[in-house]
């Protein structure tokens, strides 16, 4: 065992960087002697690190109050920012409003509640195969489909499907149990399908899908906007069907939007858009748009961030027409938009906004960079020229 002590001393000196070149070389030679030395080295390193971590851990003073103070300071700054913004709005809109200071208190403080524009929230209606409608909010619940599949709803607004071995259907089984998820205006939702594919659904969206994928293909039907992270399965291609346009997927992340034209933006992997025998392959960072009037599928390179930011809780607009911007905002904030001057619809603007923030912050900055004025009355927004 003397031998082992010697080795330990050398190894320790090696880790503590106490060895000279000759000493280090010696260790390297020793390591090459046999696999067991390498094994010993790894084991020694593990214990060495644990030891070191234990020594460090004793020194750490875990007092949340130190951090809490720094977070509070942040919040106070944000309050002032909120007040400042409110003043600007009061001046420009003429005293109609209020602001949301949700950063400060755990509950949003609303000065005049009924006149606040509220952002959307996680909400949806799940239509089971029986036709029964179940409201999805922030309550955890577990449902069961008639084929035995469990529908698990978590309190953070997520549905997932769990298939137990016992009721797994065979490929021959042709009866399909379909579910439909409907996201209203001002809502969003997160869904995990039975194959593990994750879907983020934006406001005013419907997705129809089988609770188990038992055919040769995995097919879902979409109206609205959704972001897909498709779980890989080469034997069973994934397809998103929108009217008569199909987006075929080969293990991928992408966004499909059918609000106006049917458009697909590819983030990673590869997808193809198919319509009436035509097929167009998209590369990452490309957008494919099916133009109903010409029946063609057009492809262009895009900054994907602007198309998928909604899923991460942001609005990102890049040189986008006001009309299109207000469309998106309306779906989330439940706005009704009126233009006093129709030409304003085509003004192109850029800006960012967090989806859970007060939309009026964005209006204030738009007023600074354009000739548009935004007057807010309840959930109505009147856009006029300055």
């Amino acid at each position, binding site marked *: *065992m003397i*031998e*082992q*002590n010697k080795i*330990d*001393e050398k190894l*320790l*000196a090696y880790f*503590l960087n*106490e060895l000279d070149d000759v000493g280090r070389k010696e260790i390297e030679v020793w390591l090459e002697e046999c696999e*067991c030395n390498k*094994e*010993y080295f790894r*084991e020694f*390193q*593990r*214990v*060495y*690190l*644990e*030891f*070191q*971590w*234990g*020594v*460090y*851990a*004793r*020194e*750490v*003073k*875990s007092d*949340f109050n*130190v*951090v*809490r103070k*720094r*977070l509070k300071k*942040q919040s106070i700054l944000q309050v002032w920012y909120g007040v400042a913004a409110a003043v600007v709005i009061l001046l420009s809109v003429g005293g109609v409003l209020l602001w949301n200071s*949700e*950063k400060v208190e*755990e509950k949003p403080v609303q000065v005049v509640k009924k006149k606040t524009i509220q952002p959307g929230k996680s909400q949806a209606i799940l239509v089971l195969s029986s036709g029964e409608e179940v409201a999805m909010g922030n309550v955890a619940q577990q449902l069961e489909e008639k084929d035995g599949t469990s529908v698990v709803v*978590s*309190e*953070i607004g997520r549905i997932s499907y769990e298939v137990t071995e016992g009721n797994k259907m065979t490929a021959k089984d042709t009866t399909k149990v379909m579910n439909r998820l409907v996201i209203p205006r001002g809502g969003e939702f997160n869904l995990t399908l039975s194959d593990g594919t994750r879907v983020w659904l934006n406001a005013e969206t419907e997705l129809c899908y089988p609770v188990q994928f038992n055919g040769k293909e995995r097919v879902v039907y979409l109206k609205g906007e959704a972001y897909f992270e498709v779980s890989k399965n080469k034997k069973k291609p994934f397809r998103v069907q929108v009217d008569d346009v199909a987006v075929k997927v080969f293990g991928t992340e992408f966004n499909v939007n059918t609000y106006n034209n049917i458009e697909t933006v590819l983030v990673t992997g590869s997808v193809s858009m198919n319509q009436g025998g035509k097929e167009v392959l998209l590369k990452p960072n490309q957008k494919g748009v099916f133009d109903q009037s010409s029946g063609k599928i057009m492809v262009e390179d895009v900054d994907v961030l602007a198309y998928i930011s909604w*899923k*991460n*809780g*942001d609005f990102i607009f890049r040189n986008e027409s006001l009309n299109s911007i207000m469309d998106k905002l309306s779906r989330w904030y439940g706005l009704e938009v009126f233009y006093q001057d129709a030409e304003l619809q085509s003004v192109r603007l850029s800006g960012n906004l*967090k989806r859970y923030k007060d939309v009026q912050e964005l209006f204030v900055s738009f007023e600074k960079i354009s000739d548009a004025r935004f007057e807010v009355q309840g959930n109505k927004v009147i856009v006029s020229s300055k």
Partner: protein
Amino acid sequence: MSPIDQKICSLLKVRKIGGMELLFREYYKPLVVWATTFLHDTQRAEDIVQDFFVKLWEKSYVALLPETLKSYLFISIRNLALNQLDKIDPLRQACDLAYYDSPWKEYDNFEDEVFRRVEEELEKLTPRAQEVIRSIYLEGMKYKDVADKLGISVATVNSILVRALKKLRQQADNKDGLTIYLFFLEKSLISVQ
């Protein structure tokens, strides 16, 4: 994915400070220790982790996912620590990075239980051994400086450390059971040959 991670993410999503508190309780100490692995300076490590937590709170737009929360935290802290290291020692060589990557695997299944076990073991050591360990691990002193400071030989410094490590290892062996025992049995047979 742990239910706590899920809780943290859902609280932070709606900007509840309770989410930060939970995050702190669950991860502060492990993250500071993790950062110290690279920096060998607990104070600096605490600063890095605190700054990171404050930033995390500010930039609420980062959607945290419970599935990846843990690795996101540890990888971020590792990178921040390595950046700091660059500032301290610009001559740090790229090959070091490979060395720094390896502790991650160990740390990933590192349990609170191990912290406690090691801390317990450290308590049992003689004051002089504790002094040696503090000087080496926390003050980053060299064997020679420690020997000079305490008026002992470099060889003694080395053997004090080896003995402490060995105790810890023996203790770990008792806990980890048969496989490790067999491994050391095999080991000692080899050294007899």
